[in-house]
């Protein structure tokens, strides 16, 4: 993934203003809801501090809590598979599917399953995966990737969805979201009840009981983990809390940060498969715990990014995300979180450029429910890239020259005066339409201002000598 490709994706985003408008307004809507929810919750700051401590402590003893969780799941008759990477996770799940004669698998929304490309693996193994979250269902029909970790189809309008449904589902064209919803409900209900396997993510695993908690508003996680006879839960290995006390805290800060709700409509807590005597539930329960770069991240300078609870607030507040949308990032995790997590999991080499798509304004850190210092981590990613020789020669040279001048006030002053004169020569009516050579990219979409006649020092000297 060279700089050119990311740039191309950004250009593409800029070339589709409708998509940009949809994402921008969607993100700002969620941001406003978060603000409302936080305003009426006096304890929010306290809970965020607490949430951070919980994440930090839990990760510092991750081996202990995972060990405890695994033992508890197995005690109840559940199966646990520990996957070093995406390939191992997909191998386990497709093998299980083949063994059990699974033809269709209904899925509730799970970012980690997108990360490991589980749907592709299932399809190759002859299993039909069906996304059940309404947003995910829509993008599956459109053969697209999600553009936001909470609202996957934020980039699409109701007209888009209407057209998609009428084409792919053979139904009458309607733009009414309520009618579109009813269509999806009916189609998916059939899928839920007939699927051979249900696949879910895990918002939080509870170590001391072997419970997994899954949060939705639609009820699709409940359906996916109740109707089919086999349930496979896929879990990023860092998504764990010690006990229900900590789960309570995390659920409350998650809901408020993500969508401005006090709690999501459904928090389904699953502890093992259907016990004998119970009325219903899956006969088999599997948890696939995925590493896929997380343990390496744990031992790296970027470990703090693992505190993330996937609320999406940083996306909603980021001016860059609002402008370019989720797809431009080219990875499953977009926005500020993705700009650190993707390089951390998949390598700074191919993905470090994401960390440059930021003004380091710090808005993400302001809203993060567990106060991750994302700007600090972005700088770390940039630094790693620089150490690995990713900075182009001309920029290195330019920065060295600037540093040298900045350390010599006389040279700096002269340099500024000369640069000012050059810009005024090159410019017209106060603006330079096109910067030369490597700086040309700056002026692809905007003009560069010429520098004023007087420098700050000139003005300072003048004012200093003025009478009070």
């Amino acid at each position, binding site marked *: 993934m060279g700089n050119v490709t990311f740039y191309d994706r950004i250009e593409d985003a800029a070339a589709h203003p409708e998509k940009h408008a949809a994402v921008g307004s*969607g993100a700002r809507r969620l941001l406003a809801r978060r603000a409302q929810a936080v305003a009426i919750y006096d304890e929010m700051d306290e809970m965020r501090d607490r949430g951070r401590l919980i994440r930090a402590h839990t990760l510092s003893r991750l081996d202990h809590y995972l060990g405890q969780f695994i033992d508890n799941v197995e005690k109840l008759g559940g199966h*646990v598979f520990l996957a070093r990477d995406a390939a191992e996770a997909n191998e386990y799940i497709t093998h299980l599917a083949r063994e059990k004669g699974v033809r269709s698998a209904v899925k509730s929304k799970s970012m980690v399953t997108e990360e490991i490309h589980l749907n592709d693996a299932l399809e190759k193994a002859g299993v039909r995966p069906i996304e059940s979250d309404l947003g995910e269902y829509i993008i599956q029909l459109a053969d697209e990737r999600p553009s936001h970790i909470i609202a996957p189809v934020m980039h699409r309008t109701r007209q888009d969805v209407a057209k998609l449904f009428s084409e792919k589902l053979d139904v009458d064209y309607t733009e009414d979201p309520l009618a579109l919803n009813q269509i999806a409900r009916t189609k998916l209900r059939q899928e839920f009840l007939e699927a051979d396997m249900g696949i879910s993510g895990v918002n939080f695993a509870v170590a001391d009981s072997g419970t997994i908690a899954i949060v939705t508003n639609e009820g699709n996680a409940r359906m996916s983990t109740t109707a089919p006879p086999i349930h496979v839960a896929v879990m990023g290995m860092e998504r764990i809390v010690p006990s229900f*006390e900590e789960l309570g805290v995390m659920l409350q800060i998650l809901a408020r940060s993500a969508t401005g709700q006090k*709690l999501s409509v459904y928090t389904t807590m699953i502890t093992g498969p259907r016990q004998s005597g119970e*009325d219903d539930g899956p006969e088999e329960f599997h948890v696939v*715990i995925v590493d896929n770069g997380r343990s390496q991240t744990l031992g790296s300078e970027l470990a703090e990014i693992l505190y993330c609870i996937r609320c999406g607030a940083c996306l909603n507040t980021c001016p860059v995300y609002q402008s370019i949308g989720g797809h431009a990032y080219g990875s499953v995790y977009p926005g500020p979180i993705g700009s650190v997590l993707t390089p951390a999991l998949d390598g700074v080499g191919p993905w470090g450029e994401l960390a440059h798509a930021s003004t380091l304004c710090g808005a993400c850190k302001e809203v993060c429910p567990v106060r991750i210092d994302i700007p600090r981590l972005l700088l770390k990613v940039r630094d790693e890239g620089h150490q690995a020789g990713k900075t182009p020669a001309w920029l290195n040279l330019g920065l060295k020259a600037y540093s040298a001048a900045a350390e010599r006030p006389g040279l700096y002053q002269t340099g500024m005066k000369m640069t000012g004169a050059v810009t005024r020569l090159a410019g017209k009516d106060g603006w330079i339409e096109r910067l030369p050579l490597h700086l040309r990219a700056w002026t692809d979409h905007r003009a560069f201002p010429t520098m004023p006649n007087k420098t700050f020092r000139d003005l300072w000297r003048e004012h200093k000598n003025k009478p009070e």
Partner: protein
Amino acid sequence: MEKQEFLQNIRQQLEKARLPEAAAAPPPLLELPEPPAIDELVDRFARELEAVNGHVHQVTSDSEAFAQLEALFEQYQAHGYLGWDSEHLPLAGVHDYLTGRGFTRGKTRLAHELEARQEEQNELAQFEIGVTGALAAVADSGTLMVQMGAGRGRFASLLPVVHIALIKADQLYLSLNHFIRAYPEVNMGSSNTVAITGPSRTGDIEGVLTLGVHGPKELHVILIQ
């Protein structure tokens, strides 16, 4: 990967991990405020649940509760329902009452054998109403803590378009934290406990609120004081 290898790998990485603010233990238990009187809890619960499109019917006697139940069945023109076993409902004689009035009660206890289970599951879709109890309720968010198990099917509060939950006022807790403090082992041996806060919803299409996506479209709580 083998468990020991997996965990050992994590241990090795932890030796050089830089985790800001990591302490040796989880933070000490939250100090919980004293809950207000039951009447206040009831009012708060009703307000919060109604704010998320649920309905709360406060009744002060069993006969009022039955009347409310029948009124809802009539409102939705239901012909049948999925219901929890009597011993898990805070109102005695619900099934006699409803079946006595001509409503069909669906069979919620499914077979274990896959083919029979599939057949029985398909039968469940026809019922318009689900009637359940709850383990507890949370006032400051309008949440029902619904615990499944023997005689407490998952589908009753999930499949039908209308979910009616019967609870007693003394099952109310002020906050989720209060509830968890009272039930530190939330799961209590059950394979499924669900915190339900209103009817099913989504804003996925342009942020427009739609109710009844995959779960119930209507949630009615009959709260017996």
